[in-house]
């Protein structure tokens, strides 16, 4: 469903993605971890071309994402993206946030879009907040709305870029719960996160990155209990000791 072939990317002189080869199957849940600056966010931002690559190919659903001629609108409509900082639209209510893309991209009628939005709000447990503005919500609630906003487009893939890193500890659980539910619905997901409990519980595969390279990949149990490389071992010991 998602395929990286010999992908390279530079930010100036910094080699952020170094010969990435990766295949993600339909329905797979992939967790990407690694030290900061290792290129993990860049990796998933390339999937819907929030970042351009300089070399190689990225194919998503048979669409060549790396090709400059590709119509991004169609591609992006099928991929939900959840940001670390939520990025809800502050001038719109929760409901308007969720309805915006269905109405304007998919051209769904307004009352139909509202029905979908309410349904998605139910899914993230926030039906009572439909008329609120983002600034009136807690971080955890905002992130759940952001997930509902992504889901409203009925995407085939959901990408999460450190979805809980900006949250207070007591709010992390509510966001992870929503994500676990998504997994059980069979959503294809790529999640950049340091939540190792989440990774162990639901990931099909963990991918460890450092300095722009994929260092190690494996089943979560294997990766956490029996890392193959010293760098991975070092990383795991450091995030688990806290």
């Amino acid at each position, binding site marked *: 469903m998602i395929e990286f072939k010999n992908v390279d990317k530079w930010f100036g002189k910094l080699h952020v993605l170094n010969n990435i080869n990766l295949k993600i199957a339909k329905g797979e849940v992939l967790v990407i971890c690694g030290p900061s600056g290792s290129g993990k966010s860049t990796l998933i931002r390339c999937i819907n071309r929030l970042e351009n690559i300089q070399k190689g190919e990225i194919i998503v659903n048979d669409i060549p994402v790396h090709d400059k001629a590709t119509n991004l609108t169609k591609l*992006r409509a099928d991929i939900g993206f959840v*940001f670390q900082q939520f990025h809800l639209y502050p001038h719109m209510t929760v409901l308007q946030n969720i309805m915006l893309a269905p109405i304007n991209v998919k051209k769904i009628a307004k009352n139909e879009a509202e029905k979908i939005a309410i349904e998605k709000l139910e899914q993230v447990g926030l039906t009572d907040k439909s008329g609120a503005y983002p600034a009136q919500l807690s971080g955890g609630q905002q992130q759940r709305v952001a997930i509902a906003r992504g889901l409203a*487009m009925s995407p085939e893939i959901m990408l999460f870029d450190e979805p809980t890193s900006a949250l207070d500890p007591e709010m992390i659980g509510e966001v992870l719960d929503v994500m676990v539910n998504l997994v059980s619905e069979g959503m294809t997901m790529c999640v950049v996160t340091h939540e190792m409990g989440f990774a162990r519980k639901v990931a099909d595969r963990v991918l460890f990155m450092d300095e722009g390279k994929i260092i190690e990949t494996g089943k979560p149990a294997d990766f956490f209990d029996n890392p193959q490389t010293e760098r991975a071992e070092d990383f795991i010991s450091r995030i688990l000791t806290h």
Partner: protein
Amino acid sequence: MMAFYFSRLVEIFPFFLKGLWMTTQIAFISLVSCTLLGFFLGIFRSGSNVFLKRIIGVYVAFVRGTPFVVQIFIIFFILPDWGIQLKAFPAALLAMAIMGSAFICEIVAGGIESISRGQWEAASSSGLTLFQQLRLVIMPQAMRVILPPLVGQYVLLIKDTSVVSVIGVMELTRVGWVTVVRIPEGLMVFSLVGILYFVISYPLILLSNYLERKMAL
């Protein structure tokens, strides 16, 4: 004495109303064109096309870095040498549009740039086209930043219409000039000119103050 002044005032007043009408026309047409052109330029000035950005940057720097009177002289007296002959009224409108759009361009670009990249990214990753992102997500937020200084700029532009008197457009200031060489009551003439400008500027000053307070919330 007062009665004399008053009769003079009554005598010249229709003439001033004509000038005020001309000033209002210039102001209205140029505010509309400055706004349209300024938003158009400002959107590209804040955009990702480096070439366009630079070109607009040069335009803005040139316009902001030269006196308005000089710009009017160039349009009215120098352009004819290159075969572009404009009457005073259209020349005045063109000069106003060029000058005003440069200032408005900077206000608009500043407003757009104040919106975080994350808003663009959220909007674009949901599949909205560039134009939709701008119209539905970016501009509604940027307008809060743009509106107060924009209305403030309108006040400046209205007052700047007085400069077009130098090429003979019969607007309010020109009317003042013409009147004052015929009658001795100079103080009265230019007080009247000032008051009439104030009458159109002041509501906008109030509006600007109101918007500033409202948008700060």
